[in-house]
């Protein structure tokens, strides 16, 4: 049942970015760029959030 559902859903959209990939320079560069983007984004988000929390934790105005 779930297999049939997956088969039907995948037939709906042509959204697979890697299946139709061609071996040209633009595609290769796009893979490199997006790999860097997807690798650095979570680090930046988590690092930024942690820095913000640390600053708030050391904010004397939060102490009643």
């Amino acid at each position: 049942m779930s297999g049939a559902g997956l088969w039907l859903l995948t037939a709906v959209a042509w959204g697979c970015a890697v299946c139709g990939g061609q071996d040209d320079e633009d595609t290769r560069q796009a893979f490199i760029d997006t790999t860097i983007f997807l690798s650095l984004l979570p680090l930046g988000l988590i690092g930024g959030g942690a820095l913000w929390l640390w600053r708030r934790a050391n904010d004397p105005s939060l102490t009643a």
Partner: protein
Amino acid sequence: MAYGMSEPDLRIVHPPPRERKPVVPNAVLGTMIFILTECMLFAGFISAYAIARTNVPVWPPAGQPRLPIEATGFNTLVLLASGALMVYAGRRFAEAPEAAKRPMLGAVALGVFFVLFQGYEWANLLSAGLGLRTSSHSAFFYLIVGMHGLHVLGGTAVIVRQFVQLRAGDLSGDSFWAGRLFWYFVVLLWPVLYWQVYL
């Protein structure tokens, strides 16, 4: 011990502990973590879209209806105005919660307008022949824009609920902060998607 001498009091008296507010309310922290995961979801969409663009020589593909750039640009301004009103509502809420009603209502109205306008655009594109299966471009368009539209709907539902709570005097500052945070995410994400998908 000799009779008549008092026993020395050796108990350690601690000063009362300093009361400290939580660094971040639980509702806000949970919303932040949720937004982080949402950022990765949309980053995945944008990355896949960027790679798909390189697979065809002309983008958007020739022979397909053009996306309504100007009308959506106007709608982008509407959503940004909604975010600005929400910032204003947050400031007014800090002064007096009652004063946040009007800007909050305005933010809701603009958010609903954004979704309705997007629906109108979708109806026009569908009638012009741009369906989900037309091409990878159209598939990505409906996926990315549709997913953002669902987030706007969800955010609008949250704000409407908070507006009802505000009218009843039950809206806490922490809850409102969390709701606003999600709305800011939805608002600030859209210009990025507009730039990527429409321009």
